[in-house]
């Protein structure tokens, strides 16, 4: 490091992280060909949006409408003629003249392998959409061998970047590990984490600006962590639950749901969902209250709602325990 450090020109914008922001404003349209049909789509749209306009259902895992695309899961890849590699539909913008294939053998192969690689290393049992994708692409995760043993508590958190225990190859390594339960509101079961980065985005610049969690480690050792893996009560977490709201696999789960599942009493078929406005403050966030046998079991918020964009605070998300307590008293 030089002694005479100089900052870049102060006019240079502070980097906001690696992903560019989608342009907004009035849009012209461009012509592209998707699966043989030539269509006009608004300039600046992504291939995912363009596909959706044609009724094409492109699978996504790390994409969410209210978060900046990180394009890491690669399930959404499509074939772009002239490109050496497949391209991620969720973030690649349309360009005039693009010829796209969304269901070619090459696309199906990559999607199938992405599903198999994930399902052979992660517990996807509480990710219903993932199960649908698995059957759509005929994924067979067992091709890589029987599942390997789970890690002990803290083992994955203390792995050194760039090093790992040599596998003997007889089993398929997994991220399986004990559930982290360190507070009364929600649990973190990273055995179920597909590392989609959504929780980190929701905790950071995309919603909450709390930065309690980040991606740590590297390679297969990469994981979601607080600094030094301190417990949530010791971390910056304010229990807004926005990370739970965006988690696609159930890795982040209301403690209420986790406990009921453990007790075998969780029964989605017996649950009702009721939209209401959060009573706590004047902002007016929409809450979707999930109740089972008259007890509130969790609270979510619809993504397409202007006020909160699916994000809440601790009161709206968790401030219903007293309702249940009243019920208990009845």
């Amino acid at each position, binding site marked *: 490091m030089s002694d005479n450090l100089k900052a*870049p020109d102060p006019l240079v914008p502070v980097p906001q992280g690696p992903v560019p922001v989608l342009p907004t404003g009035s849009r012209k349209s461009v012509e592209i060909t998707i699966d043989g049909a030539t269509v006009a789509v608004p300039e600046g749209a992504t291939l995912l949006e363009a596909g959706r306009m044609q009724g094409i259902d492109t699978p996504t895992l790390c994409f969410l409408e209210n978060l900046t695309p990180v394009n890491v899961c690669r399930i959404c890849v499509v074939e772009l003629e002239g490109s050496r590699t497949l391209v991620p539909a969720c973030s690649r913008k349309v360009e005039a003249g693009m010829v796209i294939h969304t269901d070619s053998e090459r696309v199906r192969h990559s999607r199938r*392998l992405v599903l198999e*690689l994930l399902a052979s290393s992660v517990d996807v049992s509480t990710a219903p959409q993932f199960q649908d994708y698995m059957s759509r692409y005929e994924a067979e995760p067992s091709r890589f*061998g029987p599942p390997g043993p789970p890690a002990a508590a803290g083992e994955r958190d203390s792995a050194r970047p760039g090093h790992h225990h040599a596998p003997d190859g007889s089993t398929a390594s997994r991220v399986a590990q004990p559930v982290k339960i360190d507070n009364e509101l929600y649990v973190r079961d990273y055995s179920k984490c597909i590392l989609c980065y959504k929780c980190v985005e929701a905790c950071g610049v995309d919603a909450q600006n709390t*930065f309690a969690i980040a*991606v740590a480690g*590297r390679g297969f050792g990469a994981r979601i962590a607080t600094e030094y893996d301190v417990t949530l009560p010791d971390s910056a977490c304010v229990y807004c639950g926005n990370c739970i709201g965006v988690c696609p696999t159930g890795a982040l789960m209301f403690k209420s749901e986790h406990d009921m599942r453990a007790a075998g009493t969780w029964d989605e078929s017996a649950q009702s969902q009721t939209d209401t406005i959060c009573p706590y403050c004047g902002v007016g966030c929409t809450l979707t209250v999930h109740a089972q046998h008259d007890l509130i079991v969790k609270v979510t918020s619809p993504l397409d709602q202007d006020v909160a964009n699916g994000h809440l605070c601790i009161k709206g998300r968790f401030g219903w325990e007293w309702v249940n307590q009243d019920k208990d008293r009845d």
Partner: protein
Amino acid sequence: MDLHFTSAEPTPQERAAIDGFLSRLPAGGPRRQYLLPALHVVQTSAGWISEGALNHLCRGLGVPPAEAFGVADFYALLSTREQPRAIAHVCDDIGCMPKGAESLCNAMEATLGPAGSTGGGPSAWQRSPCLGMCERAPAALVVVAGENPSEQAIGPATAAVVLGALAGDAPPEPGVAASLPQAGAAGLRLLARAGSIDPTSIGAYESAGGFTALRRALEMGAEAIFSEVTSARLVGRGGAAFPTGVKWAAVRREPAPRYLICNADESEPGTFKDRVLMEGDPFALVESMVIAGFATGCERGYVYIRGEYPLAATRLENAMARCRERGLLGDDIAGSGFSFDVELRRGAGAYICGEETALMNSIEGFRGEPRNKPPFPTQVGLFGRPTVINNVETLVNVPLVLTMGAEAFASIGTERSTGPKLFCVSGQVARPGVYEADFGITLREMIELAGGLAGSGKLQAVLLGGAAGAFVGPDDLDVPLTFEGTRAIGATLGSAVIMPFDDGAYLPAVLRRIAEFFRDESCGQCVPCRVGTVRQEELLQRLASNDVHGSREDEVALLAEIGRVMRDASICGLGHTASSAIESALARLPLPEEPK
């Protein structure tokens, strides 16, 4: 943003080291970019990055501690867990394997316990991927933290020398000429000075022709330099073989401010040419960067150098300081009115940070995760600005283009591979080292230039281009070493690695080590590479131990599927090429099923 901190406090030493660092930072401006340098400071003074130290530096830089932890925990040379102050990183990668790496590791284990154990003593050792010293195999790097910190590259390494260095002894330093078997020979262009002059003396550099090109460049003007480089048909030497003129043109079209980055991260197994250039002729890189910055209208340059290259970093720092004193770097260079300064940034043990966009994230203080492209760095690069990024060797060709003239430069080599080229020759050859030759020399001639085969003398295979390259067999020795010639046989020149293996090598174990490398070095961002490299390593382990699932054919077919998704759907070049060398060996070579 309101930051939250745990109650952990730094020790007085950590606090002093961090405060000293922070006091040298410029006032104002974005501070996140100083995160990695700050982590280096803590690592160097304390030997690890404690929770209290991280809190303290995060307060100073305004970075959330969870994010800073995620950055620290990305790099192999930084430790977020307490460890002994003296650590030996012992290379067990493919270049050192045939040169006794395993017996060195065994000897280390006998004295210090298992690799990575931190059992209380003052020193410990770890296995390391290629340290970029394959010509001096087996190699080791000893890092001692504390009040008198030191970093010593050792090669060839013996347990006695490594243990001595851990205890504070200075290991023998053979000098850069030992890595340059051609040093002093007539007719060398890129290596005209390296190994022959004092690399710390600006006077020696100048007497040997240094700065002639810079003076000419300042007279010619940016436009003329740019058109010379374009008509010389200079192609990037960093591995991707991209035409330099095209890259420069793209950045020149974009609005200022623009940045120039020299990619000196060189971590591809088998590659060491940039290190030898920087150790042997550091002023040439500084001169080259000033010329490139001038030609592309960049106002600032960065050299991102591999963390494992302490000597090259010291020599570059010295060269930059001497150039500043002489008015050849900084404000108003040589009275031309052009101002340009260069900052050195050190990596911290991550091959992926050689990928251009990962490198930019690393400089900016983020995890070294590659960005999705487009947009390309020529438009949205470092700090979101248009950025030229070139390899060390690419840049060092630029003064040569100016002194020789584009036409003469382009007449060397072939139509599509112009100019002189550096090759990293290691493995089973008699005289390993960095060699300069014109493009078009054949693989056979190259091996002969390096003294012919060593070991048993019977060639089994040659790894061409690096771990991301390809294996070729004894029948391919007449391939011309050019971009197009190697491509024609389904290989690649990559980073110009030439690593022959004799018939005593058990290639399945070599392939397994390559698979281990990619697994360890994957940034972990995208699924095809993060998990694909794990499945590939498991599969290669089964092949190497001849304990396959189903038949060998089933395994090879499964590997092809894993390779295909990594190639098709990964974000960056690491995933795209992680199976290339392995698949090439399985396709071309008759692999044994058991070690001899």
